[in-house]
Structures are given as C-alpha cells and as structure tokens.
C-alpha cells in the first residue's frame, strides 16, 4: 500500500514534465510603475506587460512570483524562479554572479526627491536608498550618509518623516510620487546617469533561455512596440531606444 502511494505521488510529481516549458518570472512587486501588486492582488506594471509579451513571442508559459528585493539574486541562483524582471539595472558587479539579457529600458536618470528644492545632498547629507540598488552604491561612495531600507516605499517615508534629507532612486519611480504629493515632495534638479539600462537577470547556466528572451526583446525593439510600451507606462518624456 505504501509503495503504491509513493508511486502515485511520484507520478503526480513527474506528470506534466514533458509539457511546454514553464518559466517562473521573479519580481519584487513594490516598485511602481515598473512592477507592483495591483488592487486585485496580481503583479502589474510595465514589466508585467513586457514579460507577458516576451513570453508570448518566445512561446513560453510564464508564471509570476514575487520575492523580497534583498534576496532576489540568491533565490534565482537556488532555482526558486528562472528570471529576474524587477527594474534591475545591468551593472558589472551583478554581471559577475548572474547573466543579463540585453536591456529593455535604456540607461535612465536617477534623481533625488526631497521636501524642498534646496535640500542638501552630497557631503554631510543623509540620503535614503533601497538596499542593494545601484543608487545605494552610488550614495555610499559619494560621501553622504547612506540610510538603507528594504523596500522603496520606506525610503520615501523616511524623507517624509524627516529621517533623511532626500531619497535617491530611479527618476521614473520618484516622478509620479512627486507629482501626486501636492507640493509636499519635490524632485531636485540634479540627475545622475547610472548603470547600463534595465535588463532581465538569468542564471549564468541558462544560456538557451537568455537567447530566447534576447531575440524577443530585439524584435520588440525593431518594430517599435517596446518604445510604445515604455511611453505608455513612464510618460512621453521617458528615454526610449
């Protein structure tokens, strides 16, 4: 009886292995408009639409998974999902541990958000940034005091309650927050170019999957649909290819 049950369990586990490849897409779900969990509780945003389109083009079945930003790379490596599609900038440091597809968002500006336009940044200032982002790395080297938080939302809250002088993040993330704050928060004029654009992260051994996504991204670049999608989510002024 036990053997029978074991066999059935094994069959249930192995059934479906021969079906179309399912790719699990890992994202953070807390970085609108890149990716966020909408009010229905589903992953939404630019990267959701892009990811679904890419999967359709590459003929893959895709499943969405959310995870902490902090552990997003280790979880990819240990195989909890197969791709990172979470507004992750392509940097040399990350490229050493994982692989990236070609970028699907061109190198874009990072900027500061503060309570007043004359808030101090640089030497002596306290700047909030999300842990493990290129922005956090930049602040750490700039001489300002870096205040790290686990989620993007907390970095903005730190500025509102006076814990930090400013928050440093992707401009595309901060701009809608500034626009809807009713003047309480302003974007500073200073902008910094960081990283080589945003790409999808994959395990280094997954070269076949990487080529599939590379081809799909290239076709979207060629027919202009990627630019249209960027404009739809980030506004007409957003950098395009």
């Amino acid at each position: 009886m036990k053997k029978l049950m074991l066999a059935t369990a094994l069959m249930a586990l192995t059934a479906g292995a021969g079906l179309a490849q399912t790719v699990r897409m890992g994202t953070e779900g807390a970085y609108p408009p890149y990716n966020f969990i909408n009010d229905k509780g589903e992953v939404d945003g630019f990267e959701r639409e892009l990811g679904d389109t890419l999967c359709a083009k590459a003929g893959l079945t895709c499943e969405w998974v959310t995870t902490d930003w902090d552990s997003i790379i280790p979880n990819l490596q240990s195989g909890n999902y197969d791709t990172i599609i979470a507004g992750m900038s392509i940097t040399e440091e990350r490229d050493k541990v994982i692989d990236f597809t070609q970028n699907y968002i061109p190198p874009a500006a990072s900027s500061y958000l503060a309570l007043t336009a004359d808030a101090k940044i640089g030497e002596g200032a306290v700047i909030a940034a999300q842990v493990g982002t290129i922005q956090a790395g930049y602040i750490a080297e700039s001489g300002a005091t870096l205040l790290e938080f686990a989620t993007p939302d907390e970095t903005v809250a730190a500025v509102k309650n006076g814990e930090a002088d400013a928050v440093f993040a992707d401009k595309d993330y901060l701009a809608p927050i500034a626009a809807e704050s009713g003047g309480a928060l302003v974007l500073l004029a200073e902008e910094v170019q960081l990283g080589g654009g945003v790409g999808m992260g994959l395990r280094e051994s997954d070269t076949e999957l990487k080529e599939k996504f590379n081809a799909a991204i290239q076709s979207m670049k060629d027919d202009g649909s990627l630019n249209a999608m960027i404009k739809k989510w980030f506004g007409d002024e957003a950098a395009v290819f």
Partner: protein
Amino acid sequence: MFESCADPKSIEGLSWLLCYLTTGKHLDFYWSFVTVLTLLAITAPVALAFGFAGAMAARSHFLPLSLIGKGYTAMVRGVPDIVFFLFFVIALDQGIEWLNHQVQCPDWTEPIRKGLEFRVCPEAKVPLNSAPQSVHKAYGFALAVVTFALVFGAFAANVLYGAMLAVPRAQLETAEAYGMSHRQVFRRILVPQMWVYALPGLSNLWMILIKATPLLFLLGVQDVVYWARELGGAKTSAYEYPHPDWRLWYFLFLLVFYLAFTKLSEKVLNRVSARLSKGQATAAGEALRKAGA
C-alpha cells in the same frame, strides 16, 4: 467585489472605504490570518510530538539515543532562530531536490553546484516549474511548518524533559512496587502527572510561537506582516485606490490581533492548568482541593 466598486475614482467616503477594504489584495490580507492560524494549529501539535520524542530520547538509557536527543535540543536551542530559519530551510529544500535528482536523473552529467548556483534537472525540481502557484505556496508552507516544529520542538523537549524529572520519585516507586514494568510506569504514572509541571513552560512556548509567526515572511510565505506593510505603504495613482502612508493603521490592527489572540490563549491555558492540577500533590492541586471542600 461589489458592482458599485467598478470605478473607485468616482466614489467617496464610506462606500470608498468599503470598496477599498474588499479589494482582492485585502482579501489576500484576510486570508493571511487564516494562514497564520493554520500554521499555529499544525505546528503546535507537531512541535509537541518532536519535543516528546526528543525528551524520551534524552532520558533513554541507550547512550546513542540519549546523545541524539540531547544533541538535538542543544543544537537548535543554541542557534539563533533567524539563522536557523535562513539556513535550514534552504538546506532542506536543496536536500530534497538533490535526493529527487539522484532518483530521477541518474545520467545527468552537468554539475549540480556551479559557483553559487544550485541546479538540478528540470524533472527533479520540487515542486515542478510547471506546477501551479498554489502548489508552490503549499510547499513553502509545509517547509515553514517543519522548520517551526523543529525549532519549537527542541524547546518543548527541554521543557518536557524537566517535567518528567519533576514528577515525585515516590509516585514512580509506588508503581514499581505494584509490579508495573518500566513502560507501564512511564505510560500510566509519569506521563499523566508530568503535564502539570510542563504546562508553564509549554504555555510560554505557545506565546512565543504566536509572536514568532511574522518570521514566516523570511520563509517566503506572505503572512499578515507582509500584507500590512504592502497595503499600508503610500500608493500613487498607479493603483486604483491611491492613499498616503497608512502603515500605522495596519500595524495597529495587527497589534490588536496579536494582543487579543494572546489574551485568549492565556485564558484557555489557565483553564487547562486548573484542570491538570486536580488531585495533584502540588500547591495548586491543594488549593483546588481546599476550595472544593
């Protein structure tokens, strides 16, 4: 959920709030309370079983068994919870996949470990990549239950070990004088009497277990704290229901939930304690006897 909620931008006041509190995301939040309670309901008895086994092993006369029991409690009690939760779950998960890999793909030639990557053949993944998200969630939940049970089982083992030693020796000797075997003494005299000594320690553990449930988030299970943080964060108009930072309200709600739950537990535990003290040769048992007389 309701038809009137179709266009949240056009509604206001109480009906807005009603619609807001019934979004799919909020339903997930409410479900996460069920998740936490289920975890507690499953973990508590399993941890008690682990503890009982650990305590029995520790007081065994057979040396290796006793070493296993003592080693288990010492190891788990000595490692910080958070380290255990981060390390053990990954090790368990990869261990299961590694074993499955050996069974399913014996002629796989590529290395499983490559740098920091852990890669078994696609058929050996547990659960399979193609499995629906609910299966992945259930698997994550099961890993969480095992981890919690193992950690709290070690503490319970020590509590039960102490309680077994606390049962008056005279009781056991009397049983032996009646001709009962070791096993009979253990089952008929020791175990029924030890609970009253174990209860204070076990109730402590239960309270700590309740408060430890937010550690679930570390294990990738979306628990109440995760949702409170996610829902409470400031929302721009990328969301259907934009609002400022409301984390304070969500966390206040959690505070009330945890306080109410621990209060209820305390009441129940007091009752159990009174019941177990009946007829015992302890101060509490004596007090009960006098009150009854």
